[in-house]
């Protein structure tokens, strides 16, 4: 048991730090959730990609560095410590890409991954529907077989960044007669500007169009845009959903950086005693999440899988994030009400953590049933 990184890993960390130091924009970019901010963040992705820092853990042939899990974690620590911009491509990079690397064809990987890595094509996740939230398997949007592909019809919603994104990936019901709701689903990719697609941006709490509804009317998708086997979509989607709540979606680096920023704010405000314990808890929580992740990464490197344990992560980081940002706003006092600050932007973002990627109630059910072995009950 040790926490020491090899000299080669440390060299990688130092290289990342230096690059970030030289390239991270001095002034924060405009909000990712606005048209202008989206474009600015897309250019930042291109800059990252030009020096192969956008997807360090991917294979080199698709724009990565074959860096592996540990170096990815180190990169993330440096990335957030450098106060670098939020990642506009994260849904594609962290949700779709691992799925394609596991289940996609080589043709799909070669066609889809490089422009994803460079921010040229930004992906949105189209899983949720108006009537299918926590009970995702009850989804109703259809995929109907047609010559050389499929026709998609129905409605998707809450699709993050779909207001400005290019493509989306989602689950569709291809066999309405399947015995169980999880069966007969197909995992497909489609263009957000394809004929038959209407995108209606939705304003989140602070008015920014952070997500969108998608109306699909016989949208044609060719066979080469089906991920894995038709009808097996649920399994394929779930095999990588662990990524969403697990360490890939929210790396510890992000919370370490936020906790340090909070500590700094607390010091600048004259170390008010009333907030001391909450600041300490943010630091302790960030350290706990970091070390927990190192343990999970060590297990993965030993060839084990993470499985339902990713639900522990999801609840932990989402609650940590909210507590941390609430503390910051409280420390700011009346200034904390100002909506055009980074603290406020991050607070609004944090508020959604317990909802997306499977609500925390759903995660607690998974923990209780699959980790503690408690009986399933009426939900």
């Amino acid at each position, binding site marked *: 048991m040790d926490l020491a990184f090899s000299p080669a890993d440390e060299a990688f960390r130092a290289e990342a730090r230096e690059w970030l130091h030289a390239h991270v924009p001095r002034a924060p970019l405009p909000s990712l959730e606005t048209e202008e901010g989206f474009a600015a963040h897309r250019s930042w992705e291109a800059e990252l990609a030009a020096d192969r820092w956008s997807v360090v853990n991917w294979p080199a042939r698709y724009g990565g560095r074959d860096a592996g899990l540990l170096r990815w974690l180190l990169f993330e620590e440096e990335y957030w410590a450098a106060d670098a911009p939020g990642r506009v491509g994260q849904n594609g990079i962290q949700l779709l890409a691992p799925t394609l690397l596991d289940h996609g064809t080589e043709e799909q990987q070669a066609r889809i991954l490089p422009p994803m890595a460079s921010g040229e094509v930004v992906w949105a996740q189209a899983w949720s529907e108006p009537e299918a939230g926590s009970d995702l398997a009850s989804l109703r949007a259809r995929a109907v077989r047609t010559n050389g592909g499929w026709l998609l019809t129905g409605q998707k919603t809450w699709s993050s960044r779909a207001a400005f994104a290019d493509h989306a990936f989602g689950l569709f019901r291809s066999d309405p007669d399947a015995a169980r709701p999880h069966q007969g689903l197909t995992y497909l990719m489609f263009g957000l500007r394809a004929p038959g697609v209407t995108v209606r941006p939705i304003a989140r709490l602070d008015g920014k169009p952070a997500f969108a509804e998608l109306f699909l009317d016989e949208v044609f998708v060719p066979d080469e845009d089906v991920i894995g086997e038709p009808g097996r979509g649920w399994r394929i989607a779930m095999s990588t959903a662990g990524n969403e709540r697990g360490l890939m979606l929210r790396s510890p680096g992000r919370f370490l950086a936020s906790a340090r920023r909070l500590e700094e704010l*607390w010091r600048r405000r004259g170390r008010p005693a009333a907030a001391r314990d909450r600041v300490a808890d943010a630091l302790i929580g960030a350290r706990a999440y970091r070390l*927990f992740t190192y343990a999970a990464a*060590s297990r993965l490197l030993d060839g084990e899988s993470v499985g339902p344990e990713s639900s522990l992560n999801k609840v932990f980081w989402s609650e940590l994030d909210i507590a941390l940002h609430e503390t910051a706003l409280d420390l700011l006092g009346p200034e904390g009400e100002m909506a055009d600050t980074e603290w406020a932007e991050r607070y609004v973002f944090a508020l959604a953590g317990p909802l997306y990627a499977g609500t925390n109630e759903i995660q*607690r059910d998974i923990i209780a049933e699959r980790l*503690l072995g*408690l009986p399933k009950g009426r939900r």
Partner: protein
Amino acid sequence: MRFLLDAEQRAFAASLDALLTAAGTPAVIRDWSRGDHAGGRALWSRVADAGVFALAVPEAYEGLGPRPVELAVAFVELGRHAVPGPLVETVTAAALLAGADPGTAERLLPALASGEAMATVAPEGAHALDGDAAAVRIAWAPGRIRLSPGHGPVRPSLDPARRLTPLLPGGDVLGLPTDEALTWARLTTAAQALGVGLALLDRTVGYVKQRTQFGVPVGSFQAVKHRLADAKIALEFARPLVFGAALTMEPADAAAAKAAACEAAYTTARTALHLHGAIGYTAEYGLSLWLTKARALRTAWGAPEECRALVVSATGDRRW
């Protein structure tokens, strides 16, 4: 970087677990609470034979240590089985004595390593744990540690298995206290608390699966499940803090581990008590042995605010 226990460390935990399970600790604990130390001493020497106290004693004084990671492994097991006695204090005394003059260290440490003697330590003026059972009693004041010649009357703790004793004044001055010893105390308290919490969770999960109301196991109710899920989360995130502190032995890291593990154990105790219903509130039901310890460990060797204060006052290039 491999932040996981290795096979040998896991085997050590498993062998301690087996030893403690076979020892029937509940009866030992209840005797200890009444001041009958015979069973506790026998158990102590088995724990010592497994090498536990030697891990805190340097090799120069017939120990195997110092080995904080293995000690943390051991203390999780001692906590899981609610083993009574001045466990943390003996380790802390060993850390203090290792820094005392070589003559004193040579005289006192081998007996701690072998389990022949228990030790207790308390800040000057505070009550020491199990001073009536310990052969070595150390009073800790800023600037000096002192070997107390004896103890005063026993006062009960909220945890009946913890017997609190004032230490008599006088006695030889042994040397200077060290911050490092406090780090040992916090690390082992944190590990012990984690073990206590894990045992409470385990027992409660078992109970709610078997207790039925409204015709179904109470563990199938979502309100019950979610409280247990929260306990699981708190404990699983305290665990890496404990082992992280064992690796660095930084005072702030040990304070963080202590705050988080004791908090996790305590909230788990509250959950365990609640989910057992009234039976959990009784002294004769075994759960009480862990419930009361979770409360006591929370303030032993640094109350929550004290530990948190240390976390925010830590300086240097911390990459937390």
